């Protein structure tokens, strides 16, 4: 890191002294807080946030879960997914947020398909705490019983097969719904992206226009400065001469104040 051609200096020894100095400083703990360079450090930086993010959030933000005193229908929970589903199940049935252990356990169950949503709702609702809360969830008992039936060895398998066959028309219908809703969602996302892109393009145009304006005014000011330079220097020389003549000898300069 250090380089010198001074023959009397041993670079290794000097480097060791530098390290010792750094160590000493660390020991003293006198390191001032370092500031991280920020975008606002950039020259001519002006905060710019004309993009209406509420429009974008409107597309992506899921419908908020509403807690109800009169009880729920199972579908009030089933429309949510993954972590949001578990959180809402806790909030609706146990009227509290999930503890981290419970959240992780149910999420793992969902991710590995060992648990269905109805399983989780049933386990919460029919747990001692859920029974104490006694929150009504219409349609849950049947779903939970059926899901529990599926877990019985051999019999559960045939029950599942039979119910699946009976549910086939509903499944086909659901697939169609998912297909069309996915297509609609993609379309909506595409539209949002186009709008977003347009918004950024407009924003960039404005930035470029204001930068051009700023540069033009800077050039003008530089020209003015160049023209004024001669007269300013003359004034300064006159002032210096006057001060010298008056014997003051010390020109106070505000920049050294």
């Amino acid at each position, binding site marked *: 890191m250090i380089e010198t051609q001074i023959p009397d200096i041993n670079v290794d020894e000097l480097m060791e002294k530098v390290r010792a*100095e750094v160590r000493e400083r660390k020991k003293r703990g006198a390191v001032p807080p370092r500031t991280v360079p920020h975008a606002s450090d950039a*020259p001519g930086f002006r905060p710019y946030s004309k993009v209406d993010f509420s429009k974008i959030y409107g597309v992506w933000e899921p419908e908020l879960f509403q807690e109800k005193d009169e009880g729920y229908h199972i579908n009030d929970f089933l429309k949510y997914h993954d972590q949001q589903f578990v959180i809402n199940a806790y909030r609706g049935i146990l009227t509290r947020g999930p503890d981290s252990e419970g959240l992780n356990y149910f999420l793992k169950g969902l991710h590995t398909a060992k648990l269905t949503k109805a399983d989780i709702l049933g386990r919460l609702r029919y747990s001692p705490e859920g029974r104490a809360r006694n929150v009504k969830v219409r349609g849950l008992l049947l779903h939970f019983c059926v899901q529990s039936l599926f877990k019985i060895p051999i019999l559960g398998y045939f029950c599942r097969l039979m119910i699946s066959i009976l549910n086939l028309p509903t499944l086909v219908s659901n697939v169609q719904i998912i297909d069309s809703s996915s297509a609609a969602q993609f379309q909506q996302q595409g539209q949002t992206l186009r709008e977003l892109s347009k918004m950024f393009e407009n924003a960039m145009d404005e930035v470029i226009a204001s930068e051009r304006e700023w540069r033009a005014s800077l050039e003008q000011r530089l020209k003015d400065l160049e023209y004024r330079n001669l007269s300013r220097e003359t004034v300064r020389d006159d002032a210096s001469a006057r001060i010298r003549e008056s014997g003051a000898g010390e020109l106070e300069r505000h920049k050294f104040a």
Partner: protein
Amino acid sequence: MRKIHQVLPDLVYGDAISNYAIEMKGYLRGHGYASDIFASRCYDARVTHEARIFKPDLIEENDAILYHHSIGSEITPFVIEHTGPKCLIYHNITPARFFEPYRPDFAKKLAEGRSNLGEMAARFAVCAGDSAYNASELKEWGFVNPFVLPIPVSPNKWSGSPDSGLMNRLGDGKTNILFVGRIVPSKCLHDLVAAFSEYLSMDLDARLIIVGEYLPDDPYYSHLVHTIQRHGLTDQVTLAGKVSDGELEACYRSADLFWSMSEHEGFCVPVIEAMWFDVPVLAYRSSAIPETLGESGIMFTEKGDLASVAALARLLVRDEELRQVVLRAQTKRRSDFLPAAVWPRLDDLIQRMEEEFASR
């Protein structure tokens, strides 16, 4: 050849190239040549008597021209077309990349000035750089056998009467760290402020004085001011602007260390000036700095570890033994740039110009 004129775009008070031209004029006149400085612009009353405003008809066909080239100006085409003896003296052009984020139009001019060198190579049979670094750049652009003519730095320049008020103020016992140079991105003053912030953790009673011209509306200047504010160093860093010789002398006389983080220097006169005031020099190893420092001064090769760079600066300030070793080396080195050592090379250059002209 009895007339040797110098041509340059601007003659500015306190500017290294302008001082070089004025010194050179004195030497040429002292050696029997009729010599004038022709500049496109010369506004400052302190130097207006040193130059004549350039007009093509003021220079005769057979007059010799020493042309100080920086970025292209309106006088460049005249010098290119001049048929008499001529020599291009190259003081380097700051690479455009430094200015691109701050002044893109100026960066464009710098890039143009640099690319013009290729075209000019065929038109100047004799050329010189003020450092071997600059001469090697000329060679890269196709110039043949460039000469090295360093900038002479004489202690006689200093009147010996530093600004007394400033001397008192800077002599308050605080450590004075000095940098002298224009406030431009290539000098990396933002790095110097960051490194000084580290230095303060080892020496709370220190100040950083940056002496050099700036344009108040320059985006880099704003960036530097913002950097100083962000580090909370408004009380410890002084941007002195362009100062008088007396004030500059006071700064040098009061300085404990000359510290440069600059990444582009074609020669760096302030380094030699610091040597004349017995101020140890610590500089980032870049461009012509190693050549100018020669067997003196201490350089660092990395900016990543600012704590170590600051520790090195601290050692140069407080380790008296190290300081004396450095100052001894600097005392030897500074004499290499005395006019008596440099001007004989100008004689050689003039002789080469004469020979080249005679051989046409």
